[in-house]
């Protein structure tokens, strides 16, 4: 018993002498991203913020932490990391890029202790009904509108057939199966032929190599079957790489990937070395474009010029900084004093020069409630050797927002 008391006293003593470090920036912005092994683009976004505004450790403004690689089984750590950011009295805004499970709870805890901190999430993995209550702004890619726009872009480029490649596990994910249904509907309306092709699941026994091999081997047969005026879309990132390789070599169209980025698939598929232009998106885009054109695939392959994850990381941080500088608090979000759509588009646009964005608010499919702090975004599609497709000027017909996955 005595021993225990001595220990407790020692802990108290040690704790007492630990003080918070003081820094020079007038306020701090906290950002949590994945690690390099988990999600590189978000991490690069946070590093860009540090590059611009400095690390708190060196008197700058940005405090960067990461969530565990196996975040789903270490929720306690996710929460502790975020709540720890709020321990800094200068902390005025916190951004989570990839709002992994636990973010909502952490935000609730922060709000209880520090109601003055602006809380932002980019790419949420939790239930929208709860995240939008805990955070001030949540953003995500607009996969509903994209379901129509990808098909529309294919039509603009002259495709006659649209092939959707996926497998059962992905088709059991609500949003993916809903997007597939939208694509089919869009094909019907735009006078194109829709086809579904099944590929093996990379998480099954064939593994990633087997799944990639399948695409490489099967593609010529697909091209024979559907003709060269066919656009291909694939829900899996690992399978995107071989698909890009074959489209570049043999023909067909590839509009954009599931979560588009010039880094997704292209460097591997076309053998582009990007080590010297890390983090410089226009330069990355240029190099990939050169490679695509060299393969003779100009005007047939596209992407988003700026990675969504990267732009989200840096834009959300920037938006937080701007709002804090304007003296805005979470109260202003509640009272509707902030034009969320405008602020978000402005911040995203700032870090993706030349690329247009569009945003619309999320509507819960089951209750019909519109969430006015949950803008869904999409970027203009960039076709290599051709330029932007002006997809953000297209109006997505209302009917597509009610198409369900069934």
């Amino acid at each position: 018993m005595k021993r225990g008391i001595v220990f407790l006293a020692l802990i108290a003593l040690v704790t007492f002498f630990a003080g918070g470090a003081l820094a020079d920036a007038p306020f701090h912005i906290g950002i949590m991203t994945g690690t390099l092994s988990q999600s590189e683009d978000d991490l690069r976004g946070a590093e860009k913020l540090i590059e611009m505004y400095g690390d708190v450790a060196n008197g700058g403004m940005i405090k960067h932490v990461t969530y565990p690689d196996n975040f789903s089984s270490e929720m306690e750590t996710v929460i502790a990391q975020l709540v720890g950011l709020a321990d800094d009295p200068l902390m005025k805004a916190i951004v989570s890029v990839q709002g992994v499970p636990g973010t909502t709870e952490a935000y609730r805890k922060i709000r209880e202790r520090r109601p003055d901190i602006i809380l932002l999430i980019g790419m949420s993995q939790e239930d929208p009904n709860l995240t939008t209550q805990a955070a001030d702004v949540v953003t995500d890619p607009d996969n509903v509108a994209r379901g129509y726009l990808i098909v529309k872009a294919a039509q603009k480029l002259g495709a006659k057939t649209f092939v959707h490649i996926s497998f059962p596990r992905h088709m059991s994910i609500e949003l993916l199966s809903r997007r597939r249904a939208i694509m089919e509907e869009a094909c019907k309306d735009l006078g194109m032929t829709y086809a579904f092709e099944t590929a093996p699941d990379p998480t099954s026994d064939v593994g990633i190599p087997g799944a990639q091999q399948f695409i490489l081997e099967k593609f010529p047969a697909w091209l024979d079957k559907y003709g060269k005026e066919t656009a291909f879309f694939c829900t899996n990132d690992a399978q995107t790489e071989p698909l890009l390789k074959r489209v570049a070599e043999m023909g067909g169209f590839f509009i954009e990937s599931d979560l588009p980025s010039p880094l997704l698939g292209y460097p591997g598929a076309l053998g582009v070395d990007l080590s010297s232009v890390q983090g410089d998106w226009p330069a990355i885009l240029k190099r990939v474009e050169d490679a695509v054109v060299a393969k003779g695939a100009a005007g047939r392959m596209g992407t988003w010029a700026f990675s969504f994850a990267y732009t989200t990381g840096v834009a959300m941080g920037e938006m937080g900084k701007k709002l804090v500088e304007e003296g805005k608090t979470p109260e202003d979000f509640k009272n509707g004093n902030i034009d969320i759509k405008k602020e978000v588009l402005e911040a995203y646009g700032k870090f993706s020069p030349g690329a247009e964005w569009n945003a619309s608010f999320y509507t819960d499919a089951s209750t019909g409630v519109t969430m006015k702090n949950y803008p869904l975004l999409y970027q203009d599609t960039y076709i290599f050797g051709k330029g932007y497709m002006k997809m953000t000027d297209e109006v997505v017909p209302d009917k597509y927002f009610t198409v369900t996955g069934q």
Partner: protein
Amino acid sequence: MKARRLVVRAAALFLFVALGVFLFVNGKGHDILLDNKTVTMGDQTYEAFASALISLDGKKAVEIQRRERLPEMLVGKNHVIRVEVMNRGGKVIQTREEKFSLGLDRTWLISLPMLISGDARWIQVFKTGEN
């Protein structure tokens, strides 16, 4: 002796279950959707109003505008709703208070225009995906 023990055990089990049922009914949370949209029921149309203050069980009132639908949460079975209809100038022009009790369904839709007009169908079970 054995019989008595059995009775005691049965009574304990009964109490246990009874407490469980009590907690179940008493602690059941309901999602309430307050709806201020124009509704047509058969040949009758109930017009939505410009704005109103809604107070549930005497809690702080929330304001609802025309064509809005607000989610609220209630716990337990019996409740009171108080609606104060306002005109464009923000002056209260009509007040109505209603008692209601909720069954075991999760989500309920309250149509405020119907409630104000005294149509008994103002509260209904809301099936998700209906709208």
